[in-house]
């Protein structure tokens, strides 16, 4: 019987994923018991989540066993810089949306992605950012009757932002 000298080990990210799903399953199992599995009228609010928690926990264990036996492949890693830039800019945009209003916050967001990250020319970046912020605001508010937020700062609100 031959065995390969360097036996492949499960990737760390896979083990972390399994642990996360296992923990989520266990949390759901415990909290759904608290919600009540059965009432005098029949099934309680916790019954269905309990079943799903059980599936999640059981599958995590099965996946771990499979990984230990034969490690699976993972998808290609993402570009960390891009993930950080997109996620942080989106979080900032969402945080400022009600404060600065849609037009100003979206203008800044688009300028960051077009000028700083995308390295577009000033003219192209400005025109696209204006169309995507001020243009979209008016198109949605007046064209589609969908109200996008205005600034909660009185001065900005007064000038229509």
């Amino acid at each position, binding site marked *: 019987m031959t065995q390969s000298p360097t036996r492949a080990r499960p990737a760390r990210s896979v083990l972390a994923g399994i642990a996360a799903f296992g923990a989520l399953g266990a949390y759901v199992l415990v909290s759904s018991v608290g919600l*009540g599995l059965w009432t005098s009228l029949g099934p309680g609010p916790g019954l269905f989540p309990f079943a799903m928690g059980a599936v999640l926990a059981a599958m995590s264990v099965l*996946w771990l066993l499979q990984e230990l036996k034969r490690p699976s492949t993972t998808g290609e890693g993402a570009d960390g810089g891009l993930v950080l830039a997109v996620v942080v800019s989106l979080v900032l945009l*969402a945080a400022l*949306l009600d404060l600065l209003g849609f037009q100003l916050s979206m203008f800044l967001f688009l300028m960051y992605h*077009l000028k700083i990250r*995308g390295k577009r020319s000033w003219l192209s970046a400005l025109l696209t950012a204006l169309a995507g912020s001020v243009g979209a605001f008016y198109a*949605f508010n007046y064209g589609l009757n969908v109200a*996008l937020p205005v600034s909660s700062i009185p001065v900005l609100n007064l000038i229509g932002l």
Partner: protein
Amino acid sequence: MDTLNELLNGFAAALTWQNLIFAFLGCLLGTVIGVLPGIGPVAGVALLIPLTLNMDPTGSIIMLCAIFYGTAYGGTITSVLLNTPGEAASAITTIDGHAMTKMGKAGAALTIAAIGSFVGGTIATLGLVAAAKPLGELGLLVGPPEFFALMVVGISLLVALAGKSMVKALISGALGLLISMVGIDPVAGAPRFTFGMDRLLDGVSFVAVIVGVFGLSEILSYRKGESTVVHAPGFRSLLPTRNEWRRSAPSMARGTGIGFGLGLIPGMTGSVASLLSYGAEKKFSKHRNELGKGAVEGVAGPETANNAHANAALIPLFTLGIPASPTIAVLMGAFLQQGLTPGPTLFTEHSEIAWAIIASLFIGNLLLVLLNVPLVGLWTSILRVPAPILTALILLFMVIGAYTINFSVFDVFVMIGFGLLGLALRHLEIPLAPMVLTLVLGPLMERSLRESLEISQGDFSIFLNRPISAVLIALGLLIICSPLLKLRKPKALTDDPET
């Protein structure tokens, strides 16, 4: 005769200028989504749901359906011209479609694809017309236990067919169901998994979740150097030769049959339909030795199958309320947002809306042919827009889409969170399709389970005592246990990029 009358009434409603504009806009937007490689039909349809919330239900669903089948055609354009499938179901078309472009026959390839899509889509819609009444009436006989069992089968099929690992697909399915359970419990009224946040009492917005998991995670997973170089294709003529028409006809017939049949089965995506159709061409076409070198059959078959599938997949949705694929699940979510429950009751409670939508499918399929071929230059010019501008604009629409569903910044944060979750799921190779399906079906499934158990006063044997539900539950179990029974699935299903 009744059906014909109702269909004619449907045409009268669908042909109002307002609904025609919605169908036209839907075809345009769908084609754009199909052309753009970064955004697939699932996220595309979800993203545009908020735009339709202020419309009347008929117009809104007409537009979303048009977006849905518009994407099927849009993906073809880039497959043929650029060798880059705009969406997964058109991947196989790149082989012969792009080879035809290199031979200067891009126009003919696109026209054949458009006509094939029209033929497949129209025949599948005729199938929907024929099946609507009888299946709808059958569906009305279905009680909560049968409905629950039917959903079990639907989800089992998608789980079993999605990706390489059943374990991972089950995790994805369970995750979707859990997300759908956040909020006030539908029966007892108790808050579940809300973590004390009032905003979660109404549940998590499925649009925000889907846009995050499918759309944002796609952008986050871009890697450096992935940019498309667009060359203007050479068109000698848009019209195929007589010989090309003659060769395409049998392929279109085969594609229609395959696409229609697979569209009826939950879990079978458009990609599987187009792959199997290509396989059929390899086996049965008279010119099979030319496949791979620019044979028109390699475009006609898969493209017809893809669109026949897209339209046939609406049959289980309209008649039984079961979404057969992730995109249809999103469409079902849109129905629910508009207060329409797809399924047998749709034809009794909202008959005029249902028939207007069906009539609009015929009109939309015709619009696609009329729009797409002459405007092909416009579609390719979209791809000449530099990548940073496209990415920024897609992010803009994602934020607007997530925000406007409840006019709340909270949903934008939900979208960002689920974008990161989607990225992790992609990295771990966990299929996303079961999650979307269970996310939409979760509340319906739970309600029918609990109603069944209330009828039986808590006795689970109700699912086994009723013949239809017993057969369906057995079928579902068989599907889930298929790996234990060493049942192999065909390679086309294992490698399905859509799941």
